[in-house]
C-alpha cells in the first residue's frame, strides 16, 4: 500500500489532500494549472436546491494571516451542478465530494437526494455551518439537536456517506460532533470559518457588503487543531481536517491532532499549485519526522 493512501467511508484516497469546498470552484479553473488526478479528492463548492446569486460585493477582505469571505452560497443549483460540473469531473480518477447546503430541512433533503442519481459523487459534505443556514431562527450549525436532525434527514435521503462539516463558532465543539455522530454521520469535516468582521476606515462601514464574513487561513489554524484534538477523543468516525493549511508540515500537524485526511482552502488563492506541491512534499516530510505512512500519523499527537 502506498504510504499516502487513506481509506475513509466511501472514499479510497490515493493521498489525504483535497481542495476545500468553495475554494476550488468545481475544479475547472485549477485543471488549467495541473492534472486534477493528482488530488486525493475534490470537494465541490456548495450546492443548493435552486441557483443562488449570493451576497453583494465586496465579498472578500484580507486580514492578518487570513481572509474573510461572504460569498453567500452562490451556485448554479444542484441540477446544473450535476449536469455541467460533475460531468466535467467524471473525466478524472479522483473521488468527488459534494458539499450541500440549504435553508430548510427540505432543501437539504432535496439536494442530498439529487446526488443519488449521479455516479461519480463519492460522498456528501453536509454544510451546516453557513451563517445563513437556519430554521426557526436556530442555526443548524450551533445547536446539537438541530445538527442531529439535519444529519439524520440527509442520511435518510441519501445513499452516500455523509461527512458533517462543523462550525467552530460554538461553545462546545465536542457536543456538536457527538450529536451528529449519533445521528449517523459517517465522518466529520472541520473546521469551517470563524465569523469575523472588518471595518473599512475611509468609508466607516463594514467592508464586506454582508457585514460579517468567515475567517479562514493560517490565522485560524490553532483553533482548528485544538478542536480536532478535542473531538478526536470523543468520536470514532473519521475527520477531514482543515483550517489554515499551507505546507506539508501543517498536514502532519492536523494528522497528529487526529484528522484522517485534510482539505486546503485559502492557500489555493495564494498558490494555485499548493495541493500538488504538498502532496509531492508529503513522503519526505513523513520520513523527516519518523513516519512511514499517513495512516501511522493519525492521532499520534494525542496525549492521554
Amino acid at each position, binding site marked *: 500500500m502506498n504510504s499516502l493512501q487513506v481509506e475513509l467511508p466511501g472514499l479510497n484516497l490515493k493521498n489525504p489532500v483535497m481542495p476545500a469546498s*468553495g*475554494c476550488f470552484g468545481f475544479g475547472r*479553473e485549477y485543471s*488549467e494549472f495541473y492534472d486534477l488526478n493528482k488530488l486525493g479528492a475534490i470537494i465541490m463548492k456548495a450546492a443548493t436546491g435552486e441557483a443562488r446569486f*449570493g451576497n453583494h*460585493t465586496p*465579498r472578500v477582505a484580507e486580514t492578518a494571516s487570513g481572509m474573510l*469571505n461572504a460569498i453567500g452560497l452562490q451556485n448554479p443549483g444542484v441540477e446544473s451542478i450535476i449536469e455541467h460540473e460533475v460531468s466535467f469531473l467524471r473525466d478524472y480518477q479522483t473521488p468527488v465530494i459534494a458539499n450541500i447546503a440549504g435553508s430548510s430541512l427540505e432543501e437539504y433533503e432535496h439536494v442530498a437526494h439529487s446526488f443519488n442519481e449521479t455516479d461519480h459523487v463519492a460522498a456528501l459534505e453536509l454544510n451546516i455551518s453557513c451563517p445563513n443556514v437556519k430554521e426557526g431562527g436556530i442555526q443548524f450549525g450551533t445547536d446539537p439537536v438541530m445538527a442531529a436532525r439535519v444529519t439524520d434527514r440527509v442520511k435518510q435521503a441519501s445513499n452516500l456517506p455523509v461527512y458533517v462539516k462543523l462550525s467552530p463558532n460554538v461553545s462546545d465543539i465536542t457536543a456538536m460532533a457527538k450529536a451528529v455522530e449519533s445521528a449517523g454521520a459517517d465522518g466529520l469535516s472541520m473546521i469551517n470559518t470563524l465569523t469575523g468582521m472588518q471595518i473599512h476606515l475611509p468609508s466607516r462601514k463594514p467592508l464586506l457588503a454582508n457585514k460579517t464574513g468567515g475567517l479562514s487561513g493560517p490565522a485560524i489554524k490553532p483553533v482548528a487543531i485544538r478542536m480536532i484534538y478535542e473531538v478526536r477523543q470523543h468520536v470514532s468516525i473519521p475527520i477531514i481536517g482543515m483550517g489554515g493549511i499551507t505546507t506539508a508540515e501543517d498536514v502532519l500537524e492536523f494528522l497528529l491532532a487526529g484528522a484522517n485526511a485534510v482539505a486546503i482552502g485559502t492557500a489555493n*488563492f*495564494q498558490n494555485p499549485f499548493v495541493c500538488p506541491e504538498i502532496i509531492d512534499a508529503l513522503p519526505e516530510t513523513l520520513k523527516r519526522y519518523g513516519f512511514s505512512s499517513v495512516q501511522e500519523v493519525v492521532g499520534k499527537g494525542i496525549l492521554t
Partner: protein
Amino acid sequence: MKKEELIVKNSTEIALETYEMVLENSFISMTAKPGQFLHLLIHGHTLRRPISIASVDRDKNTVTILFKINGSGTKHLADYQIGSVINALGPAGNGFTLEPESSTILLIGGGIGVPPLYNLGKKLVDNQKKIISILGFQTKDYVFYEQEFKQLGETHIVTNDGSYGSQGFVTDVIGSIADFDTYYSCGPLPMLRAVSKELVHKNGYISLEERMGCGVGACFACVIPTDHNGGYRKICKDGPVFHHQEVNL
C-alpha cells in the same frame, strides 16, 4: 495564464503615490493582451493583488505596471527593489475586444484606471486607429502619462480641482469630442457609471475592479450582476473588460 516569476527591472515614482514598475518575464510579455492584468503575490499578504498591464516590450521581455499606493499591499510593492522577484498569475482576464470596423476610438481613463488604456492605445495606433484620450485625475500631483498619451493622439487632461488641465470630471469633456466609433473606459465605479450613462447609445467597453480572492474564476468573490435574475459574470475571468451593456453597474 500561468504562475510566473517576474524580475523587477525598474521602479520609479512618476506621480504622487504612483509608481511605474518594469517587470521582466518572457511568457507574460509574449502573451499579454491589452486589458489583462497580473495577480501579484506580495510578501506577507494572504491575497494576491490585481494590477493591470500598462505596456509591453516584447524586445526586452518586459511588461510595465503602474500602481497607486492604496493600502498595505501596494505600499509594500513600492518597496520592492530592482532585482527582486515577484510571483504573479497572468496574464489574467480577457482584455479589451478590438473592433476592426471602428476607426476613431475614445479612451476615457480615471486615476489608476488609466494604465490599461495605455497598452490598448498603443495597440490601436499600431492598428492604424485614430485615438482621442480623456484622462481624469484628482489633482495636478497625480497626473501621469500625459506625454505618453499625447504621442498616441489628441489628449485631454481633467483634474477634479482644476489644478491642471480643465477642471471637473471626464464626463464634462466627453460632449466636446466631435465623433468616435467606440469608447473604452477604466476608472472608479462612479466614473464608469457616469460614462456609460452619458454614452448609452454608443458602442463601448468598460474595465471593472472588484476585490478578488482567487483571481482565476474559482471563488465567486468578484462577480458583477448582468441582470436582476441572478445572472452574473466574474470580473477576474469573464472580465475585467465588459461591453457596457453586458453588466449592471
